[in-house]
């Protein structure tokens, strides 16, 4: 109760409803649909909370029959007794039974909270839905009103109401609901706005489905979660405020029992019988606690149900089966002049609480000054491999076998300190989303400065001069102007150039470029690719280019590796890859390009879907989708075979396939 009213002014977003506790049950995925409530009940804390709340409500309802004493029965022979067999929770300063008073007291307290919650829901939901769904001037008026009302000090206004209406708690609770509703309406509006923008709502509109139906069937179910969460938390807040007001002397007067009133009675005799503080305080506290926990559980259940559960931290789980291909790996000589040499690397990540292998027995070499492409579709493990080289796997991810040798050091087995020393100055990174890759609160110049200072040091002036040199090197038209801009003032192409300048600050000898142009328009893409090629030529820097785009591979790479389901399935020079693809997956992926097909004709697509990590088939990972598959393909892991002239293929029928491809 430190804050005025829970959620009267919280800045709360769509799924991240503010809540006092982020504890949640383990996430489970249930293939069948189920109701929100069932998902809530599955969480033990939530079930316990609901149980407690039911108990309190039932106790209040049945107080007439079940309470051991009349709440106003005075027994001056037994005052301040403390818990006894006759009075389980003791007696107060007039010898009245505390348990009975608690049971009767709950009636008023909960009725008051219910009034407040009903008002809160009625106003908040309707207001929020209307403003969110219909937008326009309704929304504009709403925003102004909310800005005004949300700043009202609610509790003090409640005092005015109580003063004017002579302590009428019903009116006070309605007022409380009204005062808290705008903050809540803002949340409802936010969620509604979000859902309204969802494409399935647009699709419903295209069908001419009436607004009423869209609101009831599409919007409300999505808003229901946040509504329940907030109603639950507010109910707790209303209970506390009701008790607080009773403590201050408002509301029902003695001898009528209320929870707040019992606390004030206890405070009068606190020096003689401190125990009396415990029953009302704990009952009230537990009720609020239960409501808060319930709110959390509803939020978690909602997140889980819509498949948008927030990424929960690493959780140790049983190791997934390691179907490693180490046994059959033919020894391939390590290129002696390799700058980076990856040997038999397997990586596992924690997915849905399970440790799952995502990269299996990968070999690859990058020589100084060379551009090597790593091609594959999403989920094949190419980006994970890039992260592993930089030592930036997510918390529960680890390299389970193999070595990553850079400059004579095995990165896979060296500590974080070695890795930290290498990042930026040995190996650097540019990533897919350049704007998200820059810190929004610093200017481009400040961010380049930081890395220059880190890697090269020097006076403030020297650092800035060097930064401007770098921004000039990446061909930004106005380096000084750009240095003064914040990331949100940059276009995607400019931001990617700034990111490249930052990556160059430590003069790395290897640049890992993870889909560096995927988020950019083609015209900007070609400029960035040109820039990368020029920088590489001038600096002799090697590039490991992670991409899904064959065009980018053809433009940039000397060598290419194709990845499928954790394996490198084919490795060779880029020209060989395009001219003589020897793995059926490479063949299929090249064939999927509309450019290599006649317009309007069916593309030679690969049937089926990519298996998810953890459900890879035995033997060749591609066999179930392969037109060339034979029984042998699924019997044992297929090793990388040497197809001559530095061409490696993980396929036993590569000769037939090479023959079939022109």
């Amino acid at each position, binding site marked *: 109760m430190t804050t005025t009213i829970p959620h009267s002014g919280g800045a709360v977003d769509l799924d991240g409803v503010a809540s006092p506790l982020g504890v949640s049950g383990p996430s489970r995925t249930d293939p069948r649909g189920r109701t929100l409530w069932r998902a809530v009940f599955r969480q033990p804390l939530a079930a316990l909370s609901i149980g407690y709340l039911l108990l309190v409500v039932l106790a209040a309802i049945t107080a007439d029959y079940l309470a051991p004493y009349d709440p106003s029965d005075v027994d001056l022979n037994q005052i301040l007794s403390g818990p006894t067999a006759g009075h389980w929770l003791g007696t107060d300063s007039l010898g009245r039974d505390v348990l009975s008073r608690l049971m009767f007291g709950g009636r008023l307290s909960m009725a008051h909270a219910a009034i407040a919650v009903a008002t809160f829901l009625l106003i908040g939901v309707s207001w929020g839905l209307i403003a969110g769904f219909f937008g326009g001037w309704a929304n504009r008026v709403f925003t102004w009103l909310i*800005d005004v009302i949300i700043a009202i000090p609610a509790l003090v206004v409640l005092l005015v109401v109580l003063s004017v209406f002579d302590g009428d708690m019903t009116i006070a609770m309605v007022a409380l609901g009204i005062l808290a509703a705008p903050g809540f309406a803002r949340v409802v509006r936010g969620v509604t706005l979000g859902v309204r923008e969802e494409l399935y709502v647009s699709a419903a509109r295209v069908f001419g489905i009436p607004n009423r139906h869209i609101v009831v069937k599409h919007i409300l179910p999505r808003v229901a979660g946040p509504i329940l969460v907030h109603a639950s938390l507010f109910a707790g807040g209303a209970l506390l405020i009701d008790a607080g007001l009773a403590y201050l002397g408002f509301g029902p007067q003695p001898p009528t029992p209320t929870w707040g009133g019992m606390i004030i009675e206890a405070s009068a005799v606190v020096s003689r019988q401190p125990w009396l503080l415990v029953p009302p305080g704990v009952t009230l506290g537990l009720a609020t606690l239960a409501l808060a926990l319930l709110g959390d559980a509803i939020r978690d259940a909602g997140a889980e149900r819509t498949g948008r559960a927030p990424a929960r931290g690493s959780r140790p789980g049983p190791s997934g089966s390691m179907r490693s291909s180490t046994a059959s790996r033919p020894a391939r000589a390590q290129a002696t002049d390799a700058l980076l040499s990856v040997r038999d690397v397997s990586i596992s990540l924690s997915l849905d609480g399970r440790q799952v292998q995502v990269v299996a027995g990968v070999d690859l070499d990058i020589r100084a000054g060379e551009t090597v492409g790593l091609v594959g579709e999403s989920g094949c493990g190419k980006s994970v491999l890039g992260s592993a080289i930089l030592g930036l796997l997510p918390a529960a991810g680890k390299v389970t076998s193999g070595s990553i040798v850079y400059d004579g050091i095995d990165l896979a087995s060296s500590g974080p300190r070695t890795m930290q020393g290498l990042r930026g100055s040995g190996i650097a990174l540019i990533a897919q989303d350049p704007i998200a890759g820059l810190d929004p609160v610093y200017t481009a110049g400040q961010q380049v400065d930081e890395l220059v200072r880190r890697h090269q040091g020097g006076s403030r002036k020297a650092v800035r001069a060097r930064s401007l040199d770098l921004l000039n090197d990446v061909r930004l038209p106005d380096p000084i102007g750009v240095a003064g801009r914040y990331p949100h003032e940059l276009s995607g192409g400019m931001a990617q150039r700034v990111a490249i300048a930052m990556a160059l600050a430590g003069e790395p000898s290897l640049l890992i470029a993870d889909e560096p142009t995927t988020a950019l328009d083609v015209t900007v893409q070609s400029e960035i690719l040109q820039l990368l090629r020029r920088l590489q030529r001038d600096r002799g820097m090697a590039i490991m280019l992670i991409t899904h785009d064959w065009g980018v591979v053809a433009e940039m790479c000397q060598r290419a590796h194709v990845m499928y389901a954790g394996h490198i399935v084919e490795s060779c020079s880029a020209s060989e890859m395009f001219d003589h693809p020897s793995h059926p997956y490479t063949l299929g992926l090249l064939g999927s390009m509309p450019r290599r097909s006649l317009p309007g004709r069916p593309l030679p697509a690969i049937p089926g879907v990519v298996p998810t990590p953890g459900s890879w088939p035995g033997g060749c990972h591609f066999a179930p989708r392969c037109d060339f598959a034979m029984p042998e393909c699924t019997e044992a892991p297929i090793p990388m075979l040497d197809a001559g002239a530095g061409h490696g293929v993980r396929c036993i029928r590569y000769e037939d396939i090479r023959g079939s491809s022109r």
Partner: protein
Amino acid sequence: MMRLVARRLIISVALVLFISLLTFVLQTLAPGDVARTILGCGGQTASCPEQQYQALRHELGLDQPLMVQYWQWLSQALTGDLGVSPVSGLDVSSAILSRLPVTASLVLLGTAATALVGVSVGVLSAVRGGRLGRVVDVLSLLGFALPNFWLALVFMALFSVTLGLLPATGYVPIDVSPRDWALSLILPVGTLMLAGMAGFAKQTRDSMLESLSQEYVRFLRANGASELSIVFRHALRNAAIPVVTMVGMLFVGLFSGALFIESVFALPGMGRLAVQATLGHDLPIVQGVVVVFTLIVVATNLVVDLVYGWLNPKVRVT
């Protein structure tokens, strides 16, 4: 940014007018008016001697139209004069001014302590995680669930009544004895801090974790930025944007908390004044407190907006 501040100022003025008008309108809805209260027939049952009542109404200006009354009050209020309460005979402005230092000490210290401890614990648990995070979770839940006046009573029973370490009630102005002033505030401020600290820490931690999971953190780390810089220069700086809003809300929230805490520890502050005035049907005083309170809220929001804009370049430039 200027537009934002201008907009805020307009809203602020509107708000203060709205609140003061609201209290005026509410008065007319009340079953009994000030005149009845003074004559001791405030309840619905008691009947007033009509002539005496009308005379008093006239004397107090209550027989004039509401807007005229409001205009008179407003024009006085703009000069800082909130009038004299006909019920208690107190000068409203000076009554509030004399109570302000108590509440200000309580709330400012409470905010500082809560924010300081909360942010430190929040950052630590974001970086270290693990057990500390869970402790913060549980404590923040308790801080939300336990009524702060109850907590205050428990502390009082423990530290003052049982252990006798600290004064149970009362307030000593700082110019009388700084030491006693501090002693008299330890329990009230401590209660406010304990009730709010963990919740604050949790929100700080959540926004720190949010910042730390951003793409730019990965990008900076990949290119060699130091961990220290990533945590403090980047993550904390970004997390500070929501944290500032939280400090503003905390500050405003503690004024409400003070209503209860001042009553428990018998501190002669604004909150206690408001409660006593409310119980005594002394509307002019309540109205005065509401207006002063609203001004504080409005000023706080303005400061928060300015700091927010200063921290967040996206807002700053526009």
